[in-house]
């Protein structure tokens, strides 16, 4: 599994899918075009500032609201390496893992990280290290199957592999 390391971008509680990708962009189908509007509803400068591997840190219920698959598509294609939050909305969580976007549940993470801190995630152990402060925290460990999906780059590539062997 690739290492996830990048700068932290901090968002609040209840970041809904309309903030991740505003409804007016749902007609877009090209992933790169979708990604150009990533997080626009919460921070219109985000898509320009984010670098590949950067990490979103948020509070409760990240990804709530309508169940659009456009939300994880935007995050993945904008280069977001992972999202760490207190909790995730259910359908967002499923869609994200299926699309290969690592998520980590880590309670109280917002108080332990400052905007721009360099974070490194060990997904296998469910651990976050804040390189900038030298502290590390334990989140909820992902299951082997979720790691397998993420390691394959999402559920579609994984299933293509499985069906090819069938």
């Amino acid at each position, binding site marked *: 599994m690739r290492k996830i390391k990048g700068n932290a971008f901090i968002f609040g509680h*209840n970041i809904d899918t309309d903030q991740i990708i505003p409804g007016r962009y749902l007609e877009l189908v090209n992933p790169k075009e979708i990604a150009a509007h990533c997080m626009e509803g919460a921070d219109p400068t985000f898509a320009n500032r984010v670098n590949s591997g950067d990490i979103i840190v948020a509070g409760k*219920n990240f990804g*709530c609201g309508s*169940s659009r*698959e456009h939300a994880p598509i935007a995050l993945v294609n904008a280069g977001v390496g992972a999202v760490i939050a207190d*909790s*995730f*909305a*259910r*359908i967002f*969580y*499923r*869609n994200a*893992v*299926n699309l290969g976007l690592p998520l980590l*549940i880590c309670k109280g993470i917002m108080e332990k990280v400052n905007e721009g801190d360099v974070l490194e995630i060990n997904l296998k152990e469910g651990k976050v290290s804040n390189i900038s402060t030298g502290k590390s925290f334990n989140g*909820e460990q*992902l*299951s082997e*199957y*979720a790691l397998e*999906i993420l390691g394959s780059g999402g*559920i*579609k590539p994984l*299933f*293509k592999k*499985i*069906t*090819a062997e*069938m």
Partner: protein
Amino acid sequence: MHALEKILARHAEKDVVTTGEIIKAKVDLAEVNDLYLQTIYSFYEMGGKKVWDKNKLCFVFDHYAPAPTIKTAQIHKEMREFVQENNLTHHFDINTGVCHQVMHEAGLVYPGMILVATDSHTTTHGAFGAFGTGVGATDMATIMISGELWFRVPEIVEIKINGKPEPGVMAKDVILHILGKLGADACVYKAIEFCGTYIDDLDVAERMVICNMAVEMGAKTAYMVPNQKILDYIRTRTNKEFEIYDTDEDFVYAENYVFDINNLSPQIAVPHSVDNVVSIDQLPEVRIDQAFIGACTGGRLEDIQAAAEILRGQKINPHTRLIIIPASNEVLLNAIKFGFIEDLIKAGATLSTPGCGPCLGAHQGVIAEGENCVTASNRNFPGRMGSTGGSIYLASPATTAASALMGKLTDPRTFLKGENV
């Protein structure tokens, strides 16, 4: 462990599962409705050839039954071809009804099973002690290939409901009341167990109403310990062996809530959210243009009966239309047999064929800009039943019928005088 955790553990071939853990579990029944042609495309895209088990996958044509447009007719056509190619044992075409009604009528729902459907209201089947949950197109396509799905073991919230509401106050009022108190995000990604003296004795249809609307609090699934009424019902439908799992006495719920519903008044969720709930007596006069009794929440025989008892021998208000859509053909036949349909049609109602009808604004009675609709269905956000400029009031079937009669939101207890609904 909780009964729901034991269901998950059994289907994942594990002894123990813990909250937050992700497991891979076998699915006993997967259902695809006619909004989700995409699942077939994803199935082939991922290399699928034949579905994993022709007895465990079913398609239900309910959202567009019968097809209102050429595009939806095409969806049905392609899905029918897939059903035939895979020789699926169970298929519910446009002549059956809403998925959350026809599956248990066909004996496909039983305690301890895992039922996954491309529909958020799959929580309904918790009424039978099943683990029911909704998924999207990609997830469903992976089930069609492998028969399995990954699940996160959810936190479990206990909602205890005690008491007995007076005649004219229905399960819909009870769940609207709870939604109003707890809010639409109270149980995100969690499971809800409903229990208490009210639930213990509740009949099949009303149990389904409560579990149906659990998803409006964000719940992944709902659960009730099957009571005798449920077991008797299932036995009339299937001979299948099943196991009822107990919750261990030392199980600790993530949260506990208690509600007493002895003196509950009829409840209304006013525009534009499901948790915007008030007692009917707190509302100013609201003119009603359309009333709808139907959908997977309010289209069962008991709901149609409640309406017929209020409207028998009466005429609805001349400026109000009342649309009745039985949840299934079986419900329709029984409603005809008991004379309810005759009562309602003589009172001025419009009857449509079983299916989702205008619940999601696709056809069969959508509303215009500026119109007010009172409905026994389950969602009231702008545009759900037609124009975004319309207003939707969620209510019980009894309140909906009384409101059609008076042409304004009306407390059904006025018409009951102590009779049982």
